[in-house]
């Protein structure tokens, strides 16, 4: 009886796991960044990756997205290796990296409209205008991105988090960089909302995360 209850609990927990890493080792430029890393993120879970510069935080996140190949070990998305389900995995993922992913010659609207279509999200132009207004970018929607300030560009890039409704996992690499206080609180609220609705988040940040939400920490060390 107890055994079956425990088994049930395990199964339940396994089905809740969104992303998990098993014995993950990553080598970059012949340097071992980390070795045999194990962790899992469940629905509604927040994994906060910490560590000094060069410890491999960005590399880890890129491995989790499938952009970077690991030396050994595997990354699973809902119990399946990400490379075997890459299309459906990417359909449910938003990655936000160091590079904004915005073309400087196109406007915010053009960039985001393209992104939504590319990621097969059904978002109307009106919705994009609305979200940009929410992000305090009124009047800048049709200017080429290159004319916007760094913080404004980040805000435009972050708008993706509002659009990808099919996502159940966000991987955010230093999302607060170049944002002002109002931008940071806007983003914090968005992340908290997403987590409460059952999404999973993996993120790095140099700022202390003042998020009123239980978080799991993963500390990477700099290795030589």
């Amino acid at each position, binding site marked *: 009886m107890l055994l079956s209850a425990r088994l049930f609990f395990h199964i339940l927990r396994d089905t809740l796991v969104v992303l998990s890493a098993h014995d993950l080792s990553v080598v970059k*430029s*012949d*340097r071992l960044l980390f070795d045999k890393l194990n962790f899992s993120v469940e629905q509604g879970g927040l994994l906060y990756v910490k560590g000094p510069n060069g410890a491999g935080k960005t590399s880890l996140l890129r491995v989790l997205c499938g952009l970077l*190949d690991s030396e*050994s070990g595997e990354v699973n998305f809902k119990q399946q290796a990400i490379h075997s389900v890459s299309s459906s995995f990417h359909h449910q993922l938003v990655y936000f990296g160091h590079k904004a992913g915005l073309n400087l010659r196109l406007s915010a609207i053009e960039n985001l409209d393209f992104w939504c279509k590319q990621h097969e999200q059904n978002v109307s132009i009106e919705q994009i205008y609305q979200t940009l207004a929410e992000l305090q970018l009124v009047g800048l929607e049709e200017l080429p991105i290159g004319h916007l300030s760094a913080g404004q560009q980040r805000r435009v890039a972050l708008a993706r988090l509002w659009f990808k409704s099919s996502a159940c996992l966000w991987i955010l690499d230093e999302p607060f960089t170049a944002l002002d206080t109002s931008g940071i609180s806007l983003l914090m609220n968005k992340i908290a909302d997403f987590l409460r609705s059952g999404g999973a988040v993996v993120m790095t940040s140099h700022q202390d995360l003042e998020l009123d939400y239980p978080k799991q920490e993963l500390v990477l060390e700099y290795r030589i």
Partner: protein
Amino acid sequence: MWKWLHPYAKTEKSYQLCQTLLPWFSVFGLFTLIVATVWGLAFAPADYQQSDAFRIIYIHVPSAILSKMLYSSMAIAAFIGLVWQVKTAFMAMIALAPIGAMVTFVSLITGAVWGKPMWGTWWEWDARLTSQLILLFLFFGVMSLYKSFDDQQQAGKAAGVMAIVGVINLPIIHYSVEWWNTLHQGATILKMDKPSMPPEMLWPLLLAIVSWALVSGAIFLLRLQNEIIRREIKRPWVLAMVSQVQDVNTGDNNSPKPEQAQ
């Protein structure tokens, strides 16, 4: 198939394999090279048409054959690396590239030297010479692409793709150049229809080809070892090996270092 092998053990194993194979390749290679060269240059009968000038064949033909074989082996190594994600295969690929380029270069030089008495010119846009020249460029392409990357794993993969693109193109290039050559053939080219070689000329040639293959193999093994050591300099097994060598040195010779310092 490959996943169960731990990647570090693999390079260590291939290093040891090189270590065991190297003496055989070097000894046999050098021996056959000397025999074949002396036999070919001094004892084989002279050609009735070209007299002694033909003797360069004992260097030209082996290098020309080897150059294509080396390019193919390089592409095969790249293919293995790309498909099965074998790190050592990329090291093998880049260890092969300069040897191949060198051999191709030798075949070009000897071809030109041979061309001078035969065709009366150092360079003739002969089909074989031309495709050999392009082959040299293909080797250069793979090598320069590899060298351009800082991350050598990335370098291996990128150069690997290029090596494979090149090997697919090689027959097309060869065929097109040959066809182009017959189209534009000038009158100066002395058409050499080769009668079947008499055995006393053929044997040293075959031996020369084998010896070139063995010597290239020996150089390849040495280069692969170097590449492995260079890439894995911080791995425990390399450090262990280095300290072993140091122990032997300091143990046998009664600490020669202070003497050198004086």
